[in-house]
């Protein structure tokens, strides 16, 4: 059965996914809003960068994060000069990596929801004396609610399911960076198949129910 190492990995995974999802919703929303409405020529390149983690191998992303955040990287210099130390092999480092890795899963559903509502609701709000910021909070966000749910569920589940970026950026430090996917890897390496089965099976169930919830949720919306 599972031991305390396994439970620590499970707890860490959910902490990481929760923090990452909240950050993604907070920072991904303005980005999605900008992408949905801007006529800037930067829209294409920025959209492509956001979508990069969809196609890049996680090791590539992890590799560059490790380099830039390492002692000789620009972000590494910055965090050191701010007295924050280095991010690789720490929990905050994992959050940053997960944030970038799950970004498209959160930004795109929200962006789609903003695009689908079109200009009309915002124009309506303006003719009813709502300032643009007021209209954003009282009209755009409520109307995009299904998009936010999809984004939160996908962002959370995708963060739980990551492996490559975590291994590159976080390594395998128990209680600090060892999440479930890495723990499974360790168990298998140590030939501890029973624990590996429990953890892997748990992941399958978790993922299945998350996706099932998403399906039901989407059908209800229709």
């Amino acid at each position, binding site marked *: 059965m599972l031991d305390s190492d396994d439970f620590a990995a499970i707890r860490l995974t959910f902490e990481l996914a929760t923090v990452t999802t909240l950050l993604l919703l907070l920072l991904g929303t303005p980005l999605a809003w900008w992408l949905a409405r801007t006529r800037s020529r930067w829209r294409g390149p920025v959209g492509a960068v956001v979508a990069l983690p969809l196609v890049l191998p996680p090791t590539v992303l992890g590799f560059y994060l490790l380099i830039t955040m390492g002692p000789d990287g620009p972000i590494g210099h910055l965090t050191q000069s701010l007295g924050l130390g280095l991010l690789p092999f720490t929990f905050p480092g994992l959050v940053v990596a997960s944030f970038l890795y799950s970004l498209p899963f959160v930004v795109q559903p929200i962006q789609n929801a903003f695009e689908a509502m079109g200009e*009309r609701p915002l124009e*309506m709000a*303006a*003719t*009813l*004396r*709502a300032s643009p910021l007021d209209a954003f909070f009282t*009209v755009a966000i409520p*109307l995009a*609610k299904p998009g936010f749910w999809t984004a939160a569920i996908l962002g959370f589940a995708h963060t739980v399911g990551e492996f490559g970026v975590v291994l590159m950026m976080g390594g395998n430090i128990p209680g600090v960076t060892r999440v479930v996917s890495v723990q499974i890897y360790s168990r298998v390496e140590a030939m501890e198949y029973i624990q590996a089965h429990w953890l892997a099976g748990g992941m399958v169930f978790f993922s299945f129910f998350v996706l099932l919830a998403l399906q039901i949720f989407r059908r209800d919306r229709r």
Partner: protein
Amino acid sequence: MTIEVQFSLSWPGFSLNVDLQCPGKGVTALFGRSGSGKTTLLRAIAGLEKVIHGKLVINGEIWQNDGIFLPTHRRPLGYVFQEASLFPHLSVQGNLDYGRRRVGHADHAHFKTIVQLLGIGDLLERHPKRLSGGERQRVAIARALLTQPKILLMDEPLAALDQERKNEVLPYIEQLHNALKIPVIYVSHSPDEVARLADHLVVLEKGRVLGSGPLTAMLARLDLPIRLYEDAGVVLEAVVAARDLQWHLARVDFPGGVLWTRDKGHPIGHAVRVRVLARDISLSREPIFGTSIINALSTRIIALGDDAHPALCLVRLDAGGTPLLARLTRRSAVTLGLAPGDQVWAQIKAVALIA
């Protein structure tokens, strides 16, 4: 009390060049084909379309001029979109409150008046999804009026409705006419709506103003190809003065005389509009007796003008200050020796009560 509108903009394939003065009260209809620029003009008045070169003064308040551009949410206007755009995440009450709360008018009496005026008292708890198209549009009009706007802008509010729903909503809009003190700008390509609602008519074509003036005078112009209906004709404002119940006829009085028309059940004293088409008027020098035509008016010829076919001409008449249009053959006009200033009898074969 006027509305001063000057806009010029140019997009690929479309340009708008408008310099207009409209009355600061009553209903001004912006009439024109699709693509004539009427919706763009309305959106520019609302500030939804930002036209760089423009001037907009509403009853003395400058909304746009050199270096001044009030954003839409600072303009005290009400806007009704073509498709009833209610907020789907709010109930009817929530929709009505949205604008009302933002102008800080929690005036309950005003709320009750407007809700009553549009007959939506029973719908307040409902969700927009559960409303018919006509009900939705009535709620949208109420929502706009509850912000106590200084002008009401309506962009083809009936165009997305079927005929039955149109007939349901039109009476409410007609009522506004009497109940509101604010000017209404009403965009439409429907002759029926313009004939029933408009006091002032602005005709747009390809982004330019073809003509602008009081409805009846505009329709009686000889120099403009303005045809609300397939045929030329005027719309008169009249009052039901008598009803002949035996023959199901109603007598309507207007400044130029009286007309008999089919009784549609309006009570005596009711204000109505009647349509008289040019093809239904014939002229004679002397009063004619022994005819089946029951309407004849003594009129004076103002001018003669061309019609679409060379065999025909249009004659503009004056009946006690009200203009009328008659269509004759050119041969008749010459045979009778008709000239401006002549007194003639206008026999009117058909008079249609439109509201």
